């Protein structure tokens, strides 16, 4: 097989390359340029000024929002992973192949319902007079303030990430060599202990990647912090919109966006390195 690109090969490989260069790389590069522009009279002007970077990085609010977002996203990643694991484990090991296929099918469905609609639904569940508090009321509890709390934001993140995390975990668990588990049993490793001694180490790559995806999704989401968290505390995605309220401060918003991208890349790099540590 000829491995060099020919006219024929370029016909297939170039379109995507050109498209992604034009409409993915250029926008991101433009975003970098934008972060050095200045705003005068509510109009952006091409410029090369560090002022947006120094202003944003000089503000305590920015770092607060950064810390909040990082914490929430990391929390969502851990929480979602922990909540998802028993589900993925049970689907992978306890269900017959037929039921398993159904379980996977059902987990795919949420991807096709609007996340907005689901978040809106949660509002109805969580509000003071909402479904949950009404039901708690029947047994004489509450009402509890559930909506507009960081907990509700986390709930939104879990809603967003859980199906994907379950599926990713599931696919790494399904491919675990069953004989490894049996070998552990065979060497006096009990049920629960096997999960920690064999199952989790074997599926590490998949588990870490799943958590990483939960992190990425939560880190950039603005729907849950606004509609379930009540905009309080401020996350980076909220800060992006807020920043523009000083009259067209898109360059500053670009600074936040670029910082977010950099953070995601570093986190992804660390996660992948951790996942593959000690492997060849």
């Amino acid at each position, binding site marked *: 097989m000829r491995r060099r690109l020919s006219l024929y090969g370029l016909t297939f490989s170039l379109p995507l390359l050109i498209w992604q260069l034009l409409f993915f790389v250029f926008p991101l590069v433009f975003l970098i340029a934008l972060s050095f522009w200045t705003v005068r009279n509510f109009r952006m002007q091409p410029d090369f000024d560090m002022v947006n970077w120094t202003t944003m990085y000089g503000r305590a609010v920015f770092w607060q929002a950064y810390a909040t977002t990082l914490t929430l996203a990391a929390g969502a990643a851990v929480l979602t992973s922990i909540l998802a694991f028993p589900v993925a484990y049970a689907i992978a090991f306890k269900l017959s192949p037929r039921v398993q296929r159904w379980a996977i099918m059902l987990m795919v469905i949420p991807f096709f319902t609007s996340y907005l609609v689901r978040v809106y639904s949660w509002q109805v569940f969580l509000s003071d007079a909402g479904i949950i508090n009404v039901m708690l009321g029947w047994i004489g509890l509450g009402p509890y303030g559930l909506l507009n709390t960081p907990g509700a934001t986390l709930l939104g993140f879990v809603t967003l990430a859980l199906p994907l995390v379950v599926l990713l975990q599931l696919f790494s668990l399904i491919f675990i*060599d069953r*004989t*490894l588990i*049996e*070998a*552990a*049993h*065979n*060497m*006096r*490793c*009990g*049920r629960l*202990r096997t999960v920690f*001694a*064999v199952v989790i*180490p*074997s599926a*590490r790559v998949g588990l870490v990647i799943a958590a990483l995806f939960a992190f990425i999704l939560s880190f950039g989401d603005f729907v849950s912090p606004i509609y379930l968290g009540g905009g309080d505390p401020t996350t980076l995605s909220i800060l992006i919109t807020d920043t523009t309220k000083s009259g067209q401060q898109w360059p500053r918003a670009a600074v936040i966006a670029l910082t977010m991208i950099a953070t995601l890349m570093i986190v992804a790099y660390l996660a992948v390195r951790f996942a593959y540590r*000690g*492997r*060849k």
Partner: protein
Amino acid sequence: MTPVTQAPLVSLEGVAKHFGTYTAVQKMDLQIHEGEFLALMGSSGCGKTTTLRMLAGLEAPSEGVIRLDGKPINDLPSWSRDTPMVWQSLALFPFLTVIENVEFALKMRGLGRTERRRRAEQWLDRMQIAEFAGRNISQLSGGQRQRVALARSLVIEPRILLLDEPLSALDAALKVRMQSVLKTLQRETGITFVYVTHSQSEAFSMADRVVIMSRGKIEQIGTPQDIYRAPRTRFVADFLGSSNIFPGQLTRDGQGRPVLATSSGDFALPAGNAPGIAGQAASLTVLDTRMQIHPQPPQGARNSVAARMIGEEFVGATATIHFETDNGQELRVQKSHEDLADLSLAIGKPFYLSWSPADGHLVQE
């Protein structure tokens, strides 16, 4: 049940295993004695692995009782038995180093760090892989992995070791090497080995006793010599594969001598191998090394059949020539190249194959 003087280490009494409507193992009786090397053989899917897994507690018997030292162990979970197993895939833990793999079973038994390490190192030494202690499994060769798997199972010094085709993934040269490692190990430690294999060569070279299974049933149990010389059933003869088999019916010829009437003709039977009831179905087996090839019909008291050559297999000093009779039965003859030189073999050419009645062996259908 075979009467035994010494109490068996393990005994299976009427053990069966069903998967849904499928029966993988049918009511099986088997005694395994302390210190013996027992091989389980049979074609793919005959239930060898299932039997082994029931011993290891990885499958529960559907019927019957498995006893260890006389005590039933049917309900003992895998992790409460000391029946370590060596897997075909080895099932080494890829996320642990060599020594951590070997320590695993000791850790599960709650041994302290230093004691664990000491005993693991001792076994690595014994298996001559001490120098790889800190390596990852992926950095080892096939033979080295095999040794790690053995060390990992033996470190708890069990009374019985279960092996499921442990050598099948190795190349030919390494296989022979590891056979001698295994056999020596078994002799020196006195541990009972239950060894599952496809390979006649492995089973016959290493085992004290061989169990031949077919479709979940035991067909024959015996020493390698017994089984090779006197297969009890047609299945066993077929399975060993070194014989040509003629199915037929017992009857008597014009002179009243017992013969087997087959679709390829009536054949005289070996002297000592007197037939039972006339009319009974039986098969005659003839080792492929015992057959002669003739361009013309042979003379004398030999049995003979006409057959066309259909192919040739060339293996080192010998060749196996394949023939087909007019009614479609395939026959094989194994000969050295010297013996074949003057026959001018060619595919499609007709020949005659013959054997002395004394080289035949009668088996049950």
